[in-house]
């Protein structure tokens, strides 16, 4: 189970997040929505270890992971994707995913640097696994393309492939549908369900309400750094405070 408790983030004099708490059931899909500036990406950055929160705790599977470094979190099974796709540009699509498998490779740094046969075997296994992840996300055809030459939508899929190669317990996606056309978004919804079927918990920050209402089982609404509501898509759609925050009514 994933849980945040009393997360508060103050930048200078600005309170970006104030006492935000919620928990997420294993293998569920949770959406985090809210108007711009609500603190959604800040929350992601805290959870994934990029920011250090002013106050509050983050738990994964009962373990307090509040102040862990990003690479430790990835090894514990918490990964993320970015709103502005972040790839290893000059490396091929396949290599990008292979790097995601780096933490899974068994031989340590020195054994793998010096034992050539083991190294070759390992590289082969990693290559095959990476290929399988590309098939999973539908990128197998682009395996040898340099990542920087991918169209945006495929870049996003590559980021997801790379994150999934870590075999995470939980994947956080920051606006996965941003910049995608409607066909790509439909494909994304299907992919998100496939990821869930593997037993992975998913949290997404998203502005595309259609996608959120379609795939999410529960939704957390943030507004001005505070949690406004938490419920099923239906409950959220009927929640007066949420409607007011979005439409600006009093």
């Amino acid at each position, binding site marked *: 189970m994933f849980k945040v408790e009393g997360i508060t983030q103050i930048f200078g004099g600005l309170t970006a997040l104030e006492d935000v708490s919620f928990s997420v059931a294993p293998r569920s899909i949770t959406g985090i929505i809210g108007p711009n500036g609500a603190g959604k990406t800040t929350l992601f950055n805290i959870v994934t270890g990029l920011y250090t929160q002013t106050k509050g705790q983050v738990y994964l599977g009962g373990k307090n992971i509040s102040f862990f470094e990003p690479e430790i979190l990835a*090894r514990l099974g918490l990964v993320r994707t970015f709103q502005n796709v972040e*790839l*290893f*540009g000059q*490396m091929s699509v396949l290599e990008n995913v292979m*790097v995601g498998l780096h933490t899974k490779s068994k031989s340590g740094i020195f054994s793998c640097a010096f034992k050539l046969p083991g190294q070759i075997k390992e590289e082969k296994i990693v290559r095959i696994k990476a290929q399988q992840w590309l098939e999973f996300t539908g990128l197998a055809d682009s395996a040898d393309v340099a990542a920087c030459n991918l169209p945006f939508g495929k870049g996003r899929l590559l980021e997801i492939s790379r994150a999934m190669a870590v075999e995470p317990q939980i994947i956080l996606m920051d606006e996965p549908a941003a910049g995608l056309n409607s066909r790509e978004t439909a494909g994304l919804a299907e992919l998100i369900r496939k990821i869930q079927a593997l037993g992975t918990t998913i949290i997404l920050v998203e502005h595309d309400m259609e996608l959120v209402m379609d795939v999410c089982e529960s939704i957390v609404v943030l507004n001005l750094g505070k949690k406004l509501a938490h419920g099923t898509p239906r409950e959220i759609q009927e929640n007066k405070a949420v409607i007011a925050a979005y439409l600006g009514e009093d």
Partner: protein
Amino acid sequence: MDNSSQLVQYVLSGLSNGAIYALIGFGFAIIHNATGILNFAQGEFVMLGGMFTIFILSFLNLPLAAAIVLAIILSTLVGILFERLAIRPLKNIKPLSLVIITIGASIFIRGAAMLIWGKDTHALPAFSSNNPLYVYGATIMPQHLWIFGITLLIIIVNKLFFSYSILGKAMRACAYNAHAASLVGIDVKIMVLLSFAVSAAIGSMAGIIIAPLTMTSYDVGIMLGIKGFCAVIIGGMSSGLGTVLGGLLLGLLESLGAGYISASYKDAIAFIILLLILFIRPEGLFKQKETQRV
């Protein structure tokens, strides 16, 4: 010696110096790609390689091969210590400040070397015989062949490591996007440490293989460091073919310039090339312009 054999002589010595510059350039590129730092202490690793070998030979009486291996290990340890003591503690600092720290470290290492080993120039024995071979009327020392062979070997190993091993890929990933690399579980700090270790090892090897030809002393790192820097700038900061070509080009121009114009301009040529490249093609001679996504 007639004109053509003179030319062959200049080309041969230019290429062998160029190979050394390329290796030193590799050291710059590997650290720069992993950290964004220009490590101006790179030349000191080169000096340490030669000086450690001489020191081990004269004090421990080990055979040459053992002394060389030990010297490379010691230089690598210095590289690791340098990263741990001078680079890592300052993690949230601008690259420019780190560059200045590397200059400080280079002065420190050079000073320490002078205190320990003195200001004398030392010669390392050649790896195999001292009998010159003759190629088209030009003389070539067996040591030149060692330089070409070892350089080629390092280039190949380097290429295989960064292209095919998972660890090499992880290091490249850090170079392209350290942020994203840490989020897929790569320990960027280890990769940075490793880049210093690898650079120190390659640098010290360069220092060792050239020492029998040019002699070595506590201050050879300054000039060799600058030449290596020049090679890597020509090569566009790549740890690949660009820098190899950059080093060879620099070595050739230097040697031809010294031969046909004046030997006193030898070092000036490196500086002129460095300035020209920085003015005209700061992205390097061989690097393609970044392709823009349409």
